[in-house]
């Protein structure tokens, strides 16, 4: 069996599955249950200065799929609403009882060096393995000048990171907000401030849906609402891109990344790792299904690694990074064409109407005069290989995109004669 243990910015973990700083890691009771279930580590729910934050009632809402499956999850909960002393005491005890598990302490304080300097010895005294700076919380706390309000200003990110590195001997992980134009800027700032790692993404500003009778968004607090932070499966594509952006940025290349955002199974985790993440953090999936999901995550990842011949996570970590590039370096001569497996086709016509109405009119509907049976065929001359038909087809594997042998060599946009600004234009020889 594959070895799932990792070392992430100097922190050893028995597996790469950590629980993110959030309600599931709010107190010892939950964290102990998580460790019993098999999680490798937790990032304890964010500690702040006393008096502790106070939360409102009605805190979560969700964006549902067709059959009430939760696609996206939204919350307006603040950082811990328990006192610093109780949290520190519990962290100390749990770490003592579970020495082989990772506990990272998430912190959020106002931008005053003195406050950060004061809290560090207290955190270190718990025996925790590291700290994570919550520069991402998008709701409530930014109004008080913390969370995303810091994460959105690279100068602040660098400054606070540096304070922490100055006053703390533990590894410092900087948690980044996605509510920003270019995530590379705060990542570079974190690195400049001396961060040992970054973790991302925190939640995305969101309103999931409305009560159209009361004319108010969810979650409803006394007839009003506020934007929350969006997470869960729906944010995975956004998170993957941001992880990739940092992984392939020459300025931050090699900076350890803890991947967060919509991870619910081993495949999600493997994808984050393939784009450079050294460990992953999970929250929403655990909140929806309980801590037991880590069992299938570990099992699935391990079996997949065995199949692929990967002995440890570092064997495939970052392997998809070189294949993630700028658009201009994609091969202009590459061509795929849709192919419909007529044996699998259930004749729902979705590919046809999608292509006919919104794309390239590359699927023909043939109607058998005698039986009325519909057959859908790809018009190879017109197909541009957009994948739309394959995506809308309800039968997995029925439509495949088949690479065509164009006989032409690799040529990217910087070389393409059709590009008026091509830097490396190739002269076509006949």
């Amino acid at each position, binding site marked *: 069996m594959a070895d799932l243990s990792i070392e992430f910015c100097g922190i050893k973990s028995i597996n790469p599955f950590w629980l993110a700083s959030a309600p599931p890691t709010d107190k010892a009771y939950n964290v102990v249950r998580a460790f019993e279930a098999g999680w490798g580590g937790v990032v304890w729910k964010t500690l702040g200065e006393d008096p502790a934050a106070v939360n409102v009632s009605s805190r979560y809402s969700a964006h549902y799929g067709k*059959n009430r499956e939760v696609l996206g999850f939204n919350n307006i909960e603040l950082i811990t609403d328990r006192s610093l002393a109780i949290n520190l005491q519990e962290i100390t005890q749990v770490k003592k009882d579970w020495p082989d598990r990772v506990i990272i302490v998430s912190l959020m304080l106002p931008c005053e060096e003195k406050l950060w300097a004061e809290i560090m010895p207290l955190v270190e005294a718990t025996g925790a393995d590291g700290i994570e700076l919550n520069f991402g919380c998008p709701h409530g706390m930014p109004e008080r000048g913390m969370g995303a309000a810091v994460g959105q200003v690279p100068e602040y990110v660098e400054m606070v990171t540096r304070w922490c590195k100055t006053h703390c001997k533990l590894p410092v992980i900087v948690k980044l907000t996605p509510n920003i134009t270019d995530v590379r800027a705060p990542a570079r700032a974190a690195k400049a401030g001396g961060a040992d790692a970054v973790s991302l993404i925190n939640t995305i500003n969101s309103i999931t849906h409305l009560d159209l009778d009361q004319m108010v968004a969810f979650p409803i607090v006394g007839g009003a609402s506020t934007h929350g932070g969006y997470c869960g499966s729906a944010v995975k594509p956004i998170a993957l891109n941001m992880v990739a952006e940092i992984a392939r940025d020459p300025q931050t290349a090699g900076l350890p990344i803890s991947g967060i955002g919509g991870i619910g199974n081993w495949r999600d985790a493997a994808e984050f790792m393939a784009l450079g993440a050294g460990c992953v953090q999970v929250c929403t999936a655990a909140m929806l299904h309980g801590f037991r999901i880590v069992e299938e995550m570990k099992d699935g990842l391990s079996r997949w690694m065995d199949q692929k011949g990967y002995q440890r996570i570092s064997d495939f970590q970052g392997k998809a990074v070189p294949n993630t590039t700028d658009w201009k370096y994609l091969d202009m001569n590459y061509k795929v064409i849709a192919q419909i497996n007529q044996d699998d086709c*259930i*004749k729902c016509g*979705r590919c046809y109407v999608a292509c006919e109405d919104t794309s390239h009119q590359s699927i023909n509907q043939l109607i058998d005069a005698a039986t009325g049976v*519909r057959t859908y065929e790809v018009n190879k001359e017109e197909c541009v290989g957009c994948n739309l038909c394959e995506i809308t087809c*309800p039968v997995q594997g029925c439509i495949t995109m088949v690479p065509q042998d164009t006989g032409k060599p690799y040529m990217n946009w910087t070389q393409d004669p059709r590009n008026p600004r091509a830097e490396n234009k190739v002269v076509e020889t006949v």
Partner: protein
Amino acid sequence: MILESLSYLPKSKEANESLAKHFTDLAPALNARQAAIESSRCLYCYDAPCTRICPSEIDVASFIRNIHDENINGAAAGILKQNILGGSCSRVCPTEILCEDACVRNHDAEGQPVKIGLLQRYAIDNMQFEQHPFQRAAPTGKKIAVVGAGPAGLSCAHRLAMLGNDVVIYEAKEKSGGLNEYGIAKYKLTDNFAQKEVEFLLQIGGITIKHGQTLGGNVQLKDLHAQYDAVFLGLGLGASKQLGLTGEDAPGLLAAVDYIAALRQSDDLSKLPVPARAIVIGAGNTAIDMAVQIQRLGAEEVTLVYRRGFEAMSATEHEQHIAKENQVRMRTWAQPQQVLLDDTGRVRGMRFEKTAEVNGRLSGTGETFEIAADAIFKAIGQSMDETSISDPLAKTLKRDGDKIHVDDQFRTVLPRIYAGGDCVAPGQDLTVQAVQHGKLAAHAIHADINGMKEAA
């Protein structure tokens, strides 16, 4: 009393209350959660096969999407626009050979069609309109006679009214609804649904129904033809086919449709005569309805006999399954040879001759057997009640076999006389087909008498 020929038989031992429990919904309605799950399974096909096969052209994908999006009134309006009897059709349609058979999720790899019939029922049962969802067009001043308040006639009347015409329906029976009221198994149309549906349909206005009006009896076609701008004949098939055997009129032998009608109209099931042993002859849905219902009323031994094999039965596999589930014994490849009577002349059983197909033709093998029975119900099909079209004008109607000949616009050979439903040649003995005939005939009538081009 129509069941006089069975009056000497015992009544059920059970009380009405407990008997009624055997006649509750055969396929219970979906609740909101089930409807949400089931509607989410619809793939919203383009040029959807379910819609293409629906005789009444209901846009199935669209109404299911509306259900899923919690637009129940939108779903219902979409159904009713094409089929004003969408509620009863959702209950009685053989969806297993129509939309649900065609459903792409019925494909080999999945084999689980979307429950279209139950979703249609969900939409109609849960619609909440403050007023009738369809409004009448400006009055045309035209008046049309519709003969028969069954699915074809009701559908025709509603559409004619909607187009601005006034309609008078002539119905022989006490109640409207036709087979929905008198002919469908009790557990398929529960809770007086047929009458509720008629009430809903009449809300559009402009339709008068006259009961106790029998064509060929107290009403003549020539009079209707003279009094109205047009006449639509939705007569149905009022006569039960005969076995052609001696003893056909003996006590203990009667048409299944007559027993079913009495059952449907009974408000005390414990008063119905119930044979301990019953034979049902036939293999259509009526035969199944009969066999299952008499079993549920307390018959101990019910044998359905059919002269061909299972695959030739007009009752669908789904219907055959219902019969088997209700302990109905099905005997194939046997035809009635003789009605067996006791000393008093009452039915005591039937002798059958085994049959076989020889060179594509059915023939008796000469081998016989007897089944003892206290009653025999024949369900070998319906035919035109000839007395209804016996006046001099009606006699000039062109016929296809015993059915009335119509063109593709449901025009008979007589000007301003139209026909549809089971009584015309293209009929398939399906409620949904009758509704479609009525609807299309209404458009043809409206266009013809108002001097318009064919309605779009």
